[in-house]
C-alpha cells in the first residue's frame, strides 16, 4: 500500500460510519432493515482498518503519514501576517492500532446489538447513533491537529449524550445523558483554554508544527509555566472524557444507556479517548504537568476501586472498574510509561468490552435485571457467557497469561520506577493497592453472578444462553485477552512485538529544565543494550529503573492479585466470613464506598444548586431590579393592578408613572400649578416677573 492510499483508506474508514448515520437518519423509517446495511458498512470499515493497520505496521512502522488542507483562510491578518486554519489527518502506528481497536469493537457491538436491541421502538435510530459515534471516535483517532481533536471530542460527547439518553422516556436516562454532556463540557472548557494557549502562540493547531516549535525552544508566551498550564488544561479534557477524578461522576450514571453502548463507548473507546489524547500530547508534557496527571490518575484509580468494592449493580461495578482502569492508564502517562499506557488502553478495551457485553448477555437473559443480588448460579445456564466473562475477569485482575497482566504489570513497574527516581512513593503504593482491590471486586462480581445458587428462582428459570450474534463477539473479545496476541512471552511484554515493534516512546520536546531528568533524551538509547531490547526507553536512568522494577512489580502484583481473588472466594464463594457483621463493623466505610464517597451529593449541594440558586437570584434581579429600575413604578403598578384587576391599562399607565417617578416632584407640582383659578395664575406672573428681574438684572 502506498502512503496516499493509506491516508485515503483512512478517510474512507472515517466516513463510512457517517454514511451509515446519514442513511439511517433519513431513510431508517422507510427501510427498517437498513440496520443490516449499517452493520455491513462497519464491517467493511473493519476490514479496511485491518488493511490499514497491517500496511502501516509492515511498511511504514514508526513513520507518520499525514495529509492536511486549509479549512479557513483569514488572509493577511494585521500584525500576524497570513493566517489560516489547517485541518488534516495523520496516521502512525498508534493511530493505526487505535483505528483497528475502534473499528473492531464497533463492528462487534453492531453485531451484538442486532439481537440485544431487537424490538426497540427506535431500533434504526440506535444504529444511526452508533454510526455517528464511530465516526466521531475515528475522527479523534486520525486527526493531526488540536482543533479537529476538539471538534470530534465534542461530537463524541454528543453521540454519548444521545446514546446514554437513548431510552429518554426514563428520567434517569435523560438525566444521565445531560449529566455526561455537562460534566464533559467542564473538562472541555479546560481543554479548549489549553488549546487556545497553544494556538495563540503558534497560530496553528497542528500537532507536528507545535511540537517542532517547542523542540526549537519556542515556548508558549516564552514560559515553561505556560506550557505546563497548557498541558494540564488539555489534560482536563481527558479528565472529563476519561472520567478521571473529580469529573468521573458521569460515567457510572452513563450505564443508563443500552449495555452494548456501555461496552463500546463507556468502556472501550470513548473513555479511552482521554488517554489517547494524552498519548498524542505526551511529548509536550512538562514535569509538573506529568506529576499532576499521575496524581489525578492515581487518585482516580483508588477512589473508583474503593467504590467498586461495594456496588451491587452489575454494570455499576464494571463502570467503576473502568474508571479505575482509566486511572491506571492516566497514571501510566503521568509516570512516563507511555507505551504501557497505550498498551493497557488496548488490552483494557478488549476485556472490558467483553465484560460489558457479557453483562449485557446476563441482563438480557435476566430480563433487564441488573442487581447482582438477584442473580447467582448463571454459570450453568449461560456457559459461554460465563467463560468469556471469566477470561476477561482474569485479564483485568492481572493474572498471568492474560493481556491485563502484561499491561498492568508494566504500569506498576513504571510507577515503581517513577517512585524510585523521584521519591513519589505514594503512586506505586496506590497502584498496588488498587491491583488487589481490582482482583477482589471482579471476582466478587463473577462469584455472585455466576456461582452459587440462584437467588431469584423465577428469573433464573427463564434465563438462557444468548444467540450467536451476541456470544460471538464475546468469544472474539475474550480471545483477544490472551497474551499471545501481544507478545510471545506470557510474563513480560517488553520483548513482544506490540511494545517492541509497534509502539515506541517518542522523544519529549520539552526543554530540559522543565521536564523530568529521566525523560531527558534518548542519547544513550543506542549505547545501552536494554534500549534495544525493550524499545520503551527514555533515558538510562528510567530504563534501568524500569528494568529493576519489573520483577518486584510482577511478584508484588501477582501476590496482591492472588490475595484479592482469595479474599473474594473466602467472602463470597466459601462464605467463611460473616459479611453482614463485617459491614456493620465497617459501617461508615461501607456506606462511604456504597455512596460513592458522596461526591454526587457534594456536587449537588455546591455547584449545581449554587448555579441554580444564582440563576434564580439573577433572574429575580433581572426582573425586579434591572427592569425595576427601568420602569420603577411598573412594579408598583403591577401590585396595584392586581388589586384593581385592571391589568392592561395599568401597565401602560405604569409607564406614565415611570415618568412620574422620573420627573418626581417637579412633574406633580407642574400639575398642581394649574389650579384653574385665573387669579392664582396672575400671582404666578407677578412672582415670575420678580424672579426674572432677580436673575436677569444687569448688575
Amino acid at each position, binding site marked *: 500500500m502506498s502512503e496516499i492510499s493509506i491516508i485515503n483508506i483512512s478517510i474512507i474508514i472515517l466516513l463510512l460510519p457517517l454514511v451509515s448515520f446519514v442513511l439511517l437518519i433519513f431513510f431508517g423509517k422507510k427501510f427498517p432493515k437498513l440496520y443490516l446495511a449499517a452493520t455491513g458498512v462497519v464491517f467493511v470499515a473493519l476490514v479496511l482498518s485491518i488493511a490499514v493497520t497491517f500496511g502501516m505496521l509492515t511498511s511504514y512502522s514508526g513513520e507518520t503519514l499525514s495529509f492536511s488542507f486549509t479549512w479557513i483562510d483569514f488572509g493577511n491578518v494585521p500584525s500576524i501576517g497570513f493566517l489560516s486554519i489547517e485541518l488534516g489527518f495523520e496516521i502512525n502506528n498508534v493511530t493505526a492500532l487505535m483505528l483497528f481497536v475502534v473499528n473492531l469493537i464497533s463492528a462487534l457491538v453492531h453485531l451484538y446489538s442486532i439481537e440485544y436491541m431487537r424490538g426497540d421502538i427506535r431500533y434504526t435510530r440506535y444504529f444511526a447513533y452508533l454510526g455517528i459515534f464511530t465516526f466521531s471516535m475515528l475522527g479523534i483517532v486520525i486527526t493531526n491537529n488540536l482543533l479537529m481533536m476538539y471538534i470530534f471530542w465534542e461530537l463524541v460527547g454528543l453521540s454519548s449524550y444521545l446514546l446514554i439518553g437513548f431510552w429518554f422516556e426514563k428520567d434517569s436516562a435523560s438525566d444521565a445523558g445531560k449529566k455526561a454532556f455537562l460534566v464533559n463540557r467542564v473538562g472541555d472548557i479546560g481543554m479548549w483554554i489549553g488549546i487556545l494557549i497553544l494556538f495563540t502562540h503558534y497560530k496553528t493547531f497542528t500537532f507536528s508544527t507545535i511540537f517542532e516549535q517547542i523542540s526549537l525552544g519556542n515556548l508558549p508566551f516564552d514560559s515553561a509555566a505556560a506550557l505546563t498550564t497548557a498541558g494540564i488544561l488539555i489534560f482536563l479534557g481527558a479528565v472529563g472524557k476519561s472520567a478521571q477524578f473529580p469529573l468521573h461522576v458521569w460515567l457510572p450514571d452513563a450505564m443508563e444507556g443500552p449495555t452494548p453502548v456501555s461496552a463500546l463507548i463507556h468502556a472501550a473507546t470513548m473513555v479511552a479517548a482521554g488517554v489517547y489524547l494524552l498519548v498524542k500530547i505526551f511529548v509536550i508534557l512538562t514535569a509538573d504537568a506529568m506529576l499532576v496527571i499521575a496524581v489525578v490518575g492515581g487518585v482516580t484509580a483508588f477512589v473508583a476501586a474503593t467504590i467498586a468494592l461495594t456496588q451491587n449493580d452489575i454494570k455499576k461495578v464494571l463502570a467503576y472498574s473502568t474508571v479505575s482502569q482509566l486511572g491506571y492508564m492516566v497514571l501510566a502517562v503521568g509516570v512516563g510509561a507511555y507505551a504501557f499506557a497505550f498498551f493497557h488502553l488496548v488490552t483494557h478495551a478488549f476485556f472490558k468490552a467483553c465484560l460489558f457485553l457479557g453483562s449485557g448477555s446476563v441482563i438480557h437473559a435476566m430480563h433487564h435485571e441488573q442487581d447482582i443480588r438477584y442473580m447467582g448460579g448463571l454459570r450453568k445456564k449461560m456457559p459461554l457467557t460465563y467463560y468469556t466473562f471469566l477470561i476477561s475477569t482474569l485479564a483485568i485482575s492481572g493474572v498471568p497469561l492474560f493481556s491485563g497482566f502484561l499491561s498492568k504489570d508494566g504500569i506498576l513497574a513504571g510507577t515503581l520506577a517513577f517512585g524510585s527516581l523521584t521519591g513519589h512513593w505514594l503512586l506505586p503504593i496506590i497502584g498496588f493497592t488498587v491491583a488487589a482491590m481490582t482482583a477482589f471486586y471482579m471476582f466478587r462480581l463473577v462469584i455472585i453472578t455466576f456461582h452459587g445458587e440462584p437467588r431469584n428462582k423465577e428469573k433464573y428459570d427463564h434465563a438462557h444462553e444468548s444467540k450467536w450474534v451476541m456470544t460471538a463477539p464475546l468469544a472474539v473479545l475474550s480471545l483477544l485477552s490472551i497474551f499471545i496476541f501481544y507478545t510471545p512471552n506470557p510474563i513480560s511484554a517488553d520483548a513482544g512485538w506490540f511494545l517492541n515493534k509497534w509502539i515506541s516512546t517518542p522523544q519529549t520536546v520539552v526543554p530540559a529544565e522543565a521536564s523530568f531528568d529521566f525523560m531527558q533524551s534518548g542519547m544513550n538509547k543506542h549505547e545501552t543494550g536494554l534500549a534495544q531490547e525493550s524499545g520503551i526507553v527514555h533515558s538510562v536512568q528510567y530504563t534501568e529503573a524500569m528494568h529493576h522494577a519489573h520483577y518486584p512489580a510482577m511478584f508484588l502484583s501477582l501476590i496482591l492479585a492472588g490475595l484479592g481473588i482469595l479474599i473474594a472466594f473466602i467472602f463470597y464463594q466459601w462464605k467463611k466470613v460473616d459479611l453482614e457483621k463485617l459491614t456493620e463493623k465497617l459501617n461508615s466505610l461501607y456506606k462511604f464506598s456504597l455512596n460513592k464517597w458522596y461526591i454526587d451529593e457534594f456536587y449537588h449541594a455546591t455547584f449545581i444548586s449554587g448555579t441554580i440558586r444564582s440563576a434564580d437570584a439573577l433572574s429575580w434581579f433581572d426582573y425586579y431590579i434591572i427592569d425595576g429600575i427601568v420602569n420603577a413604578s411598573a412594579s408598583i403598578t403591577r401590585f396595584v393592578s392586581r388589586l384593581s384587576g385592571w391589568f392592561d391599562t395599568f401597565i401602560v399607565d405604569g409607564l406614565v408613572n415611570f415618568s412620574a417617578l422620573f420627573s418626581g416632584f417637579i412633574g406633580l407640582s407642574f400639575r398642581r400649578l394649574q389650579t384653574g383659578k385665573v387669579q392664582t395664575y396672575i*400671582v404666578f406672573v407677578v412672582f415670575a416677573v420678580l424672579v426674572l*428681574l432677580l436673575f436677569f438684572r444687569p448688575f
Partner: protein
Amino acid sequence: MSIYDVIFYLFAILTIGSGYLVVTSKNIVHSAFYLLFTLFGVAGLYVLLAADFIAIVQLMVYVGGILILLLFGVMLTNKVTDVKIRTGTIHIIPAVIGTGLLMGVIVSMMLRTNWKSEPGELPFTTTYGLGRILLTDYVLVFELLAMLLLIALIGAASIARRDNE
C-alpha cells in the same frame, strides 16, 4: 411749596387714597364710586401735566363710559334687591407680598433712574397738536383703533346678546 405742588399733592392723595379703597372696600358699589374719585384724581394730574385734552377725554370716557359700564355690570350680575353687594377677597398674603415687592422695586427704580429731562414747554392747548399728529404720524394707529372699536362692538354684542336659543 407752590400752589402747583399743593394741588399735585391733593390730587395724588385723592388718586392713591381712593385707589386703595377701590381695591379694599368690601362693598362693590362703594368700590365703583371710589374708582370715580380715582379717575377724577388722575384727570387732575393730567391737567397738571398740561394734558388738558386728555384730562377731558379721561373724564368723558372713563367716568362717563367705563365707570357706568362697570356699574351696570355690578347691577346686572347681582340681585338688585340685595342691598349689601359685597365681595370677598382671596390670595391676600401672596398678593401683599407680591405687590408689595413689586411696588418697592418699581418705586425705587423710578426714583433711581436718571430720566431724560429737557426743559421745554408744551403748547398751552394741546388739542390742535394732538389732532394733527393723530391724523398724520399716528394715522395708522388711529385707523387700527377704529377697527378695534368695531371688533369690540361686534364682539361685545355677540357675547352679551340674549339669543332666543
